[in-house]
């Protein structure tokens, strides 16, 4: 290939080397060296990706880049899988987000995890995560993507259960892993269907094949798309598999920011965008994606209204925002979804990191009800958090405004179903604005509600990333949907352009104004409830106990799953273990073996009478039989009866 060398394989490999060094030697290395390795690897990857971005921007690199002659991984029958990578606008944006935000969170972690015993272990896992995530993003075919997909799941499991001495953390890690397995099952079936239909897992080949056969729609493509989407709902915490994400907040806060907000959970959205050619051919699958996304957005936002744990509010907010992204995918506006993915990575990582700073400053206090009045004590955290809150609420001109607006506009243009989706999206925007400002008021305004708290501002290793992310949360959307969409169009197709669509710019402005108005309304309600009249929420909770309890208990979904799936499954496995395996198989084998030995012994012990004369009798009998055998010419005797043994017969 002509042109500059790209070092694509180095992007995942550098964090992997970091993981190996820290994972193997970290325990013996001084802290400074561990930090240097842990920060150096992602920084180098980020610089490589940044260089790619600059090359593309300056026009000296044409996308997409699919390097030929990648080493073959598997070759079974007609299936060939190689380690090929794909670099197109989609993976470039995703790589920038993953390595950029990832590197910032690595820096932040140095301050946040400074006093942890497993410092080296933490950074080894974090680098491992970056390795798998970049593998996932760069993968040129579904199987390599699946490797990255499973790998980030592993890293997520290890990091959620980082404090594995805590039973709840260990259980949360397991829950995340098991729930993700359900989704992965869908992904696997989807891959089988791809193989059966196209005979290849290579994304570009599938796209070529589909382009060559325009008559191919629905049917098996719908099934494939839906199976892949099941995988996406697992990884990206959508209904009905979202339940692991709130529990994943047991992990360290930077992990929640990196894995469970900014990057890993968006892998599902990325996968749908990557395989969008399939979804484009199946209106039904697209509708399912859109409806699941919208339902999740609304559902999670309502739960977020009443949570009191600062990280859980953010977790439900993440689920809700991921719902937005799928809503965008579902109306075939993939570039809008990726745009929201990017801005969300900025402001949600910032929200989590700022929340981590609050938690750190208060000595591991996560309960919003015990916070308050932190505005003066933690000014940098306050201002960066403010930027993030305004960004996620969707105020002009912050990042969240542009991306959310793009998704809502695309939904509105998507027929009659689109109008309903748009309405759900607007209601979700109102709820989002309300619960974010609720968090903002509870944490930073009023008087401190815990007299024992001595909040202090965090070190600059944490505030630095916060500031950079704050700038990105403010300015990240200024590139504008048109330019971003045009950049992504070769990879994910075009979207409805407001400047040429019916209704045109006016409709876009009206919808934008409406969205901002809704966000302002949410702010006003939060202001009234949590700033002017702090006793009002409690009275409201008493006034509508049914609704309040439903939300506080998160619609009892965990309880329902426990009753419908977990308990019967446990009972069944216990039955299998105790009665089939333990009692029937193991016990049965012991009985059969022991019984045979006992029975045989009971028969054989007759000979061991201890009676000398009986021994003598057996001896004599044996000798007599032997004599009979030797002396009688048996072959001739038998031949007399017409029986021929082998030797004689010949």
């Amino acid at each position, binding site marked *: 290939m002509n042109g500059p060398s790209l070092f694509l394989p180095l992007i995942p490999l550098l964090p992997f080397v970091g993981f190996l060094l820290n994972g193997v030697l970290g325990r013996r290395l001084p802290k400074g060296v561990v930090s240097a390795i842990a920060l150096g690897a992602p920084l180098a990857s980020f610089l490589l990706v940044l260089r790619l971005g600059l090359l593309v921007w300056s026009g000296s690199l044409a996308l997409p880049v699919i390097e030929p002659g990648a080493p073959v991984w598997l070759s079974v029958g007609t299936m060939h899988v190689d380690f090929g990578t794909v670099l197109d606008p989609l993976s470039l944006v995703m790589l920038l987000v993953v390595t950029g935000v990832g590197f910032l969170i690595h820096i932040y972690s140095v301050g946040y995890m400074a006093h942890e015993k497993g410092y080296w272990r933490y950074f080894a896992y974090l680098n491992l995560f970056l390795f798998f995530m970049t593998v996932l993003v760069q993968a040129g075919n579904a199987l390599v993507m699946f490797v990255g997909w499973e790998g980030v799941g592993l890293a997520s499991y290890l990091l959620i259960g980082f404090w594995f001495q805590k039973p709840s953390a260990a259980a949360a890690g397991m829950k995340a892993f098991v729930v993700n397995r359900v989704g992965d099952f869908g992904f696997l079936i989807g891959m089988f269907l791809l193989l059966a239909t196209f005979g290849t897992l290579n994304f570009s080949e599938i796209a070529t094949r589909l382009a060559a056969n325009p008559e191919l729609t629905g049917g098996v493509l719908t099934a494939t798309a839906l199976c892949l989407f099941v995988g996406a709902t697992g990884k990206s915490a959508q209904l009905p598999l979202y339940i692991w994400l709130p529990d994943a907040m047991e992990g360290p806060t930077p992990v929640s920011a990196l894995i469970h907000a900014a990057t890993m959970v968006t892998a599902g959205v990325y996968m749908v965008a990557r395989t969008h050619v399939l979804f484009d051919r199946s209106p039904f699958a697209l509708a399912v994606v859109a409806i699941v996304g919208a339902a999740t957005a609304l559902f999670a936002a309502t739960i977020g209204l009443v949570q009191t744990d600062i990280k859980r509010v953010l977790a439900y907010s993440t689920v809700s925002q991921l719902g937005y992204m799928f809503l965008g995918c579902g109306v075939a506006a993939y570039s809008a979804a990726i745009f929201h993915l990017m801005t969300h990575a900025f402001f949600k990582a910032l929200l989590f990191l700022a929340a981590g700073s609050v938690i750190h400053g208060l000595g591991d206090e996560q309960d919003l009800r015990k916070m308050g009045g932190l505005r003066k004590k933690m000014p940098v955290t306050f201002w960066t958090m403010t930027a993030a809150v305004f960004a996620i609420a969707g105020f002009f001109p912050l990042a969240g405004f542009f991306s959310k607006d793009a998704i809502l506009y695309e939904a509105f243009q998507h027929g009659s179903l689109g109008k309903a989706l748009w309405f759900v999206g607007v209601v979700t925007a109102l709820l989002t604005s309300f619960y974010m400002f609720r968090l903002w008021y509870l944490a930073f305004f009023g008087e401190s509600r815990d007299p024992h708290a001595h909040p202090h501002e965090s070190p600059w290793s944490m505030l630095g990333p916060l500031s950079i992310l704050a700038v990105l949360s403010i300015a990240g959307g200024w590139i504008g949907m048109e330019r971003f969409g045009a950049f992504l169009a070769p990879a994910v197709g075009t979207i409805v352009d407001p400047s040429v669509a019916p209704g045109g710019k006016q409709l876009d402005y009206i919808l934008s104004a409406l969205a901002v108005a809704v966000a302002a309304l949410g702010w006003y309600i939060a202001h009234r409830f949590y700033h002017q009249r702090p006793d009002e929420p409690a009275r409201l909770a008493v006034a509508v106990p049914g609704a309040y309890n439903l939300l506080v208990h998160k619609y009892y979904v965990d309880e329902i799953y426990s009753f419908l799936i977990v308990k019967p499954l446990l009972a069944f496995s216990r039955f299998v273990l105790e009665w089939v395996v333990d009692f029937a198989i193991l016990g049965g084998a012991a009985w059969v073996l022991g019984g045979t030995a006992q029975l045989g012994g009971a028969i054989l*012990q007759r000979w*061991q*009478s*201890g*009676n*000398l*004369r009986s021994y*003598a*009798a057996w001896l*004599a009998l044996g000798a007599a039989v032997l004599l009979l055998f030797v002396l009688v010419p048996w072959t001739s005797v038998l031949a007399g009866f017409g029986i021929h043994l082998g030797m004689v017969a010949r």
Partner: protein
Amino acid sequence: MSLWQQDVPLSLYLLLSALLFALGVVGFLIKRNLITMFMSIELMLNAVNLSFVTFAHQWHAVKGQIFVFFVMMVAAAEAAVGLAIIIAVFRARSTLAVDRIDLMKL
């Protein structure tokens, strides 16, 4: 070539040997006294010795004669050990009836 060799055929020697052996076997099987059983074993050994000598004479092979000496030697050693055991058993249990000496029973 002596006279009696011609008068008494080989088969008679072997018959006597077999008879003695059978006597030994029967005695060993039906007697209860350890010493009697012991003597029956000696009887069987000597019956075998007789057939050894007979065949050695018949085939003019000295090996059979030598074998008899071996058997006698082993029988003597066996008698010494066997009688010692019998005495020990009698001292311990005041009986030589084999039906009562059945401690090896499971």
